[in-house]
């Protein structure tokens, strides 16, 4: 059985016909060829597969396609550069040296975008808390936190809640 869904993915309207139990991660990576989103564990522990569905971060490896409602707005790492806030975040990650191997980064930066869109905070404790589900083995997190703080300072007015 397949279900029909229309989703707004990174600002584009996409129609998909997928088995309802198919992992949303596979729908993104394989069916839609959005390979930016990564699989680090496949069981909800690493956060590399984080995407935003209707404003909330979700782990796409734990999500069935059928759980993503019709008409849902989805943002993946590929969509960030289409937004002002996403661009600010990318520039801050680059400047502060927040990415090393880069494998955690698609999920990490999507989490940052979700956080700052809701609350453009520069508070390190809040930032750390909001990223505790995104595991990075390379950076030790300090430069990631710095990058998010710097992006929060420049967070575009039009993107603020």
């Amino acid at each position, binding site marked *: 059985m397949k279900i029909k869904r229309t989703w707004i993915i990174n600002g584009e309207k996409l129609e998909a016909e997928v088995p309802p139990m198919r992992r949303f991660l596979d729908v993104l990576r394989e069916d839609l060829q959005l390979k*930016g989103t990564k699989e680090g564990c*496949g069981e909800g522990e690493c956060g590399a597969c984080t995407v935003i569905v209707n404003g909330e971060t979700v782990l796409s490896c734990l999500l069935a396609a059928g759980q993503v409602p019709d008409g849902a707005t989805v943002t993946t790492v590929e969509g960030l550069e289409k937004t002002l806030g996403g661009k600010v975040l990318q520039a801050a990650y680059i400047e502060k040296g927040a990415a090393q*191997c*880069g494998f955690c980064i698609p999920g990490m*930066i999507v989490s940052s975008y979700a956080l700052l869109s809701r609350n453009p905070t520069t508070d390190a404790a809040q930032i750390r808390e909001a990223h*505790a589900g995104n*595991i*990075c*083995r390379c950076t*030790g997190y300090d430069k990631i936190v710095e990058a998010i703080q710097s992006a929060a300072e420049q967070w575009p007015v039009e993107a603020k809640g």
Partner: protein
Amino acid sequence: MTVQERGAYRVIGQGIPRLDAADKVSGKAEYADDFHVPDTWYGAVVRAPVACGKLKSLSRDPAFDWSQVAVVTPEDIPGNNIVDMMGRDMPFIAHDEIQYLGEPLALVAAPSLHVAKQAAAHFKVDVEERPALLTLQEMVAVYKEDPAKLHKLSGQTIRKGDAASALKDADIVLEREYTAGHQEQLYIEPQGMVAIPERDGTMFIHGSMQCPYYINPELCETLDIPPEKLRVKQSAVGGAFGGKEEFPTLIAGYCALLALKTKRPIKMIYDRNQDILYSTKRHPSWSHYRVGVMKDGTIRAIECDFVLDGGAYTTLSPVVMYRGILHAAMGYRCENVSIDGHVYRTNTFPNGAFRGFGAPQALWAWESLIDELAAACGMTPDAFRLKNCLHEGDVTPTGGLLRDSVGSPEVLEKTLERCQFAEKWQQCSRGKSGERLWYGIGLSFFAHGSGFTGDGEARMKSKVALDLETRADGTPIVNVRVSSTEMGQGTGTILPQVAADALGIDVTHVDYPMPDTFKVPDSGPTVASRTAMVVGSTIYSAGQKMKADLESFVSETLFDGQPTELVENQFRAEYDNRSIPFVEGAAAYLASHGPFRVYDQFKLPDYVKWDQENFVGDAYPAYAWGCNVAEVEVDTLTCEFRVTKVTAFFDIGRILNPVLAMGQVQGGLIQALGYAMMEKLAIKAGKYDADRMQTYVIPTSVDGPEMDLHFVEYPWDHCQPGAKGVGEAPMDGLAPAIANALEAASGVRLRDLPLTPERLFEELSRSQRLTA
């Protein structure tokens, strides 16, 4: 020795963003699982059901539909069924003896991963099970009884002076044992590889790896193809930390054997569970010391047994053990040293490379013991270290002379001063009763040998190339051609910086294409903190050669033979002040001569001498130096503890890119924090008990302490620009610093890694410090 000024360099020393940063923050970087090769089948491994035994038969379940499945067994291997690593004792596919749980018995491939996995589960395996030796603890128990009962994989000694008689003269002799457990690298990108059989008979291996030239030629023997028919190319690597040093040869071999059989591209991406169960880990270790000191704190003699749990096969264990014993008595003056290193077999997956490569295990024990020795002499840990630490002109345990670029004692002195160690040491709780929180501060100090151990660099003779080529848009570009891989640590940025500086141009004119053995010479593996020092300095001299050639071309063809220099992106004529931009001169060169390649090869300075048989001489051409201070807080109700602050200084030689170097230190210290107190693998029923990310817990963004981190720069001036490597030193010293701080807080010493509240509770109960 004075610290060299950085002024001579323009691009080196700048914290420019990584060249691959834009691709990584936009999701464009292509990792092994991201490229699509049409017609690909998926591979899976049929694994042994026991940790030790004899394989009697392997058969397929006739009820399963095998029509869409390809199977490879040892009979299908065209060449030798041997993984060509040290020892040559590991088969690609087991055919007789089984030495670890999950050892491959056959390989399967199918058009979908689902079918491949199902097929792998439909084999019938008949084995005669034998008793397995599984843990370090079991191994050490047998060792103490009779080492001859163990299967020895490797051994090596270090002898200096006469430790046995010097021990007799010592005022105080301490005998201590320390252990450390497994650690999983846990790169976030799991192991992944694709093998593509090409029409001309070439096998093309593309995937996640640290060392393309390990796979080629290691696979040639198994596939029975000449080296020129094996092409290995690196994809973006999502972290490695040693875990993608030797292991990728195995998964590449599985893919290639299946690709030969099916004549199709084969892909294997491990899921996290397989990755943890069936890939290398840091070796568990047991260090046993007898050390004699005089009452004034002089170290008279050091005797040490350094024993590693090698896992099932030899692989890289001898070299890991070498680095271990070379660091097991390093850092301090002592005339009488006797170290015995051993690696024994256990029936687990072979243990292997992991950031630090034996040094973290050795230094965990040695730097803990230094605190115990200080206390035995009635000295503070800082005073004892300041009294004994090596200085320029001193000799190492193997008799190597520390000629120059010695960051000791400066890193030690600066760290102590920066964190106000002496004052804080006075405030430590030392297990005082009646307090809810205990405070402690602890210290570690260490050297980390830069580059390959022993004669490795002399034998390797790393080769590099620089290519002046034309970009798609018609402009000239200098491509760095090395087999050193970018795995997050910054190779792909620092090497272009070095090349740009040597040439006198901006880094925008230099690029680092992913290594491909059809295009790059063998610069050696990307390991041992050697890339910045060894490959970097060779790139620097290649850059100088290319610069000289371009200068003489421009001089002759454009500047009427005037002396010409390439500086700051301009070719400048000496007499009439004419100048043209680099791109113009380079384009003119390309138009008249075509692409231009410069080769170079690393050469150790003549004074570096090493006797590999006796382990005497300069074990490393230079050392990085580090000092770590940890401050801890212990909750006396729960025995939980946390590190509140880490202060550290490192001497990594010339800093090529301060942002990337600091990233290595920060990330390395957090990985070391995990090693010290979070990451735990036990073996239950022959199997790692923490075989998922849910159970193998590593530091998250909320687990790190406040960090106050600094560099001092003692460049290794025998090779410009004089980097000494930063990858591994941050992994070396945090565990003992934390254990030392815990003792200062609680009054009890933990001698087994990881340090856990349970162990602290046990020790406190034993010492009757828990009165509540």
